[in-house]
């Protein structure tokens, strides 16, 4: 069978799956983009607005605040998750018999549904009765101060997602051939040099994958923070997704809310593309 013919015959076979993708992914996405180019509220039929909604975004202080919160949340939480995840993976790689037990305990935060863990953290952070203030012997208003609340949300995300990063890195660590370490030892490399010259370069591709996953999740963060603080106080924890939700589902301004959603999509796509490039670069 010729190659061209094989391709021709493959089309009908792939078509159903392709159709499903188009219907469930492409159509809604394009619809949101289309909506974002229109003025559409509950009061009026849609009218074409061109880039009007995006111009409104540019002049909207609340949008810039939400974008800033989202980026800060993403950078800090992903960085912490990567560092902590790496440290835990390195520890676990040496843990021997304890490893199996550690797996189970570590997976718990990742396994708890986000809304449940956010409610749990709401209580942990409770200024009066929370266990955190009990342990600290203080009366810190974790969720009642804008800056503290954003960091409280970051800590919650780090607690939840670090196990995911750690497990990914642990799997990669175990895939590094022992010979390399023996060779390094023979050459007289100390632990730090071994880590820098052997472990880190071989972990890098997996670290990038972990960072891609975490970044994309963090840029879209909604449920955890929405349950923890609702975006307050003083919009101090309002992320782009929370802002988009409030505009789309509360004020029902579908055009403007869609423009916000498109920005979330664009920021995520840019981040994903940058990492994809880095991954390709690393592979060469």
């Amino acid at each position, binding site marked *: 069978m010729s190659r061209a013919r094989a391709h021709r015959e493959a089309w009908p076979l792939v078509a159903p799956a392709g159709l499903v993708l188009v219907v469930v992914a492409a159509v809604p996405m394009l619809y949101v983009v289309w909506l974002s180019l229109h003025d559409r509220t509950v*009061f009026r039929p849609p009218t074409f607005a061109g880039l009007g909604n995006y111009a409104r975004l540019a002049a909207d202080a609340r949008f810039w605040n939400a974008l800033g919160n989202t980026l800060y949340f993403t950078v800090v939480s992903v960085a912490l998750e990567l560092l902590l995840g790496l440290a835990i993976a390195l520890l676990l790689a040496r843990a021997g018999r304890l490893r199996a037990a550690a797996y189970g305990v570590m997976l718990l935060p990742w396994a708890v549904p986000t809304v449940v863990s956010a409610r749990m953290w709401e209580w942990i952070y409770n200024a009066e009765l929370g266990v955190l203030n009990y342990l600290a012997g203080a009366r810190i*208003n974790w969720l*009642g101060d804008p800056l503290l609340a954003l960091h409280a949300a970051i800590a919650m995300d780090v607690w939840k997602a670090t196990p995911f990063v750690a497990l990914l890195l642990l799997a990669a660590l175990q895939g590094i051939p022992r010979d390399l370490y023996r060779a390094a030892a023979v050459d007289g490399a100390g632990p730090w040099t071994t880590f820098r010259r052997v472990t880190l370069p071989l972990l890098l591709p997996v670290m990038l994958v972990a960072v891609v996953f975490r970044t994309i999740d963090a840029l879209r963060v909604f449920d955890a923070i929405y349950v923890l603080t609702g975006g307050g106080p003083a*919009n101090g924890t309002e992320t782009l997704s929370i802002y988009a939700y409030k505009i789309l589902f*509360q*004020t*029902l301004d579908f055009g403007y809310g869609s423009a916000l959603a498109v920005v979330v999509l664009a920021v995520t796509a840019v981040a994903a593309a940058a990492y994809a490039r880095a991954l390709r670069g690393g592979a060469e």
Partner: protein
Amino acid sequence: MRRAEWVGPRVRSGVVHALAALCLGALLAGCGPREVSTGHEVVVFRHPKLFGDPAALERLFAEFERESGIRVRSETLPSASDEQHLFYAINLQAGSREFDVFALDVIWVAEFARAGWLVDLTALVPDADREDLFPGPLAAVTWNRRIYALPWFVDAGLLYYRKDLLDKHGLAPPATWQALVDAARVVTGREPGLYGFVWQGKQYEGLVCNALEFVRGQGGDLPASDAARDASLRGLAFMRALVIDGVAPPFVTTLTEEPARVIFGQGRALFLRNWPYAWQLLARDGSPVQGKIGVAALPHAPGQPAAATLGGWQLGVNVHSARPAAAARVAAFLASARAQKALALAYGYAPPRRSLYRDPALARAQPFLASLREIFETARPRPVSPHYVALSQVLQSELSGVLTGERAPAAAVRAIDRAHRELERR
């Protein structure tokens, strides 16, 4: 049989119409009303879940059906306010006929009226009713001088206080905000571990209600008119000072109704701002503060009227209803003094009619509700605007900013006014 039930109301209503036609013939031929009970017109009523025995509502509907020949089928809404709003918006915008009469939160009437989703019900409110209704709910259902919904239940902010502690220290319930601050200072100074005043300071709709009470109690308003600007700034500065001066605990910036109610209910606060629902929970057997609490109108500045924020539910008729006449009759019945009295007796919801507060049976069965008449009389709705939901988001973040010290009151008032003007242009 099962299958027929499953096919449900839509098919049945076709049958119902046919039967109705038959029975009309039968009626003309001398058939009595008893035989036509299956031929009744069905009106669907959407409302939030009523807390209590559902039988009371069903009895009311049965009574109405006997008198009018209209059967009411009641369906409940999701419990979260956002979801209720979204449910209505999606269905009404799509021209749904799945419900005919529906209950609306006080803040949605202008929005739904402007969207053209509500039947104009002005004709259903005769002058006698207008005089009977409290002014707050009447203002909340009026948009462009027409009435788009009928007030059903009212709600308003109240001040709960520890009667025992005020008595112990020789103090009276505070009438002014300054008196509240002074009383809180005196009592918390002598009673260790007691908070002065807990209320709803989290960034959400409840903060708007609380802040409006501080602001209006000084003679101001939000959005602020030029004349009211200074008073509004005083109100916001007072709200912030409550936290700075320690009259309210710092974590008031995270409190919603229930956490605040629980703190007060455990005997750990001198004053609480909450809605009437809290009374039952605070005064019931086993409550640590049972018999130790009192309720008063919220304080105000000297020379200013008390101004509780109004809440509650209204009844609207779906503009797409296939049975508008029957639907209007159902709405009018549910909003009648008779139905409101029955529901107040069964569920403890406060009626919006003055006359019912003079009703001896109601005063006997619900003495607490009856004591709130003066407060409902002066309760004021949040800004009546078709853009209220959008405006509220601005109010929530600006007020939260003032409360946490991120925003100066003047900057917040400017931002709120600007947002209000922009929204009204849209």
